[in-house]
């Protein structure tokens, strides 16, 4: 028996960053993720949704949580329709920034989750985050 729950949050302004990360945290707590994992994922979402607001203006954050008898899992997809990331490999390097920040957002977020996928082209950037733990 697998239970799945899904929610989408529109990202339009800075307050939506807070809504997205709070929602993910709550969803994770509901299915039994510990507070370290909740904090990791919420922080990664905070980094990435801020990029959406800052560089693309708007986007969507989809949060899917699932539980089976053996595993709990969260998948987050953050997409935007902005100009895209010109050089994804470079953007994943520590300290690389085009926006005057610290260049810690993308590589930092990657370190916090189990799986991190990024696809980007002008008009559509998608980042997938995933975390799973045994169901105890």
């Amino acid at each position, binding site marked *: 028996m697998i239970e799945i729950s899904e929610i989408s949050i529109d990202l339009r302004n800075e*307050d939506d960053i807070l809504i997205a990360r709070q929602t993910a945290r709550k969803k994770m707590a509901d299915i039994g993720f510990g507070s370290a994992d909740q904090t990791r994922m919420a*922080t990664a979402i905070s980094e990435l949704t801020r990029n959406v607001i800052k560089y693309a203006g708007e986007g969507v954050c989809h949060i899917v949580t699932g539980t089976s008898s053996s595993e709990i899992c969260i998948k987050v997809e953050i997409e935007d329709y902005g100009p895209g990331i010109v050089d994804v490999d470079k953007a994943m390097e520590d300290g690389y920034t085009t926006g005057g920040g*610290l260049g810690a957002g993308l590589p930092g977020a990657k370190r916090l989750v189990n799986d991190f996928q990024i696809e980007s082209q002008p008009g559509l950037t998608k980042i997938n985050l995933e975390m799973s733990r045994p169901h105890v």
Partner: protein
Amino acid sequence: MEIPILKLKNILLTSIQSDMNDDDALKYQSDVMSTLEKSGAKGLVIDITAMDIIDSFMARVINETARMARLMGARVVLCGMQPMVALTLVEMGRELIGVDTALNLDKGFDKLVKMFNEGVD
């Protein structure tokens, strides 16, 4: 959302709440600076007990606020970091380097007073 900045003797005490957005964070930074100037306080305590998430943006704001206050002649202590926040910051490779820290508000005050007495820079 306004973050209260309290003055206790010659120390400014601020407690940042978790859910402040980016504009609030930058406003907080400038409020701290102007209060420092007006009050002539010698120390600043930044309490982050209530923050359950610190991303790289907030880390930068806190770090910069501390450095700005330092430039204005105040001693700064950051206190109350939650264990999970410390874990996440270190894993991300973002640390609040350059800021004196203490476990909690109580110890933060002690540390500041000690800095005043010893004149440590």
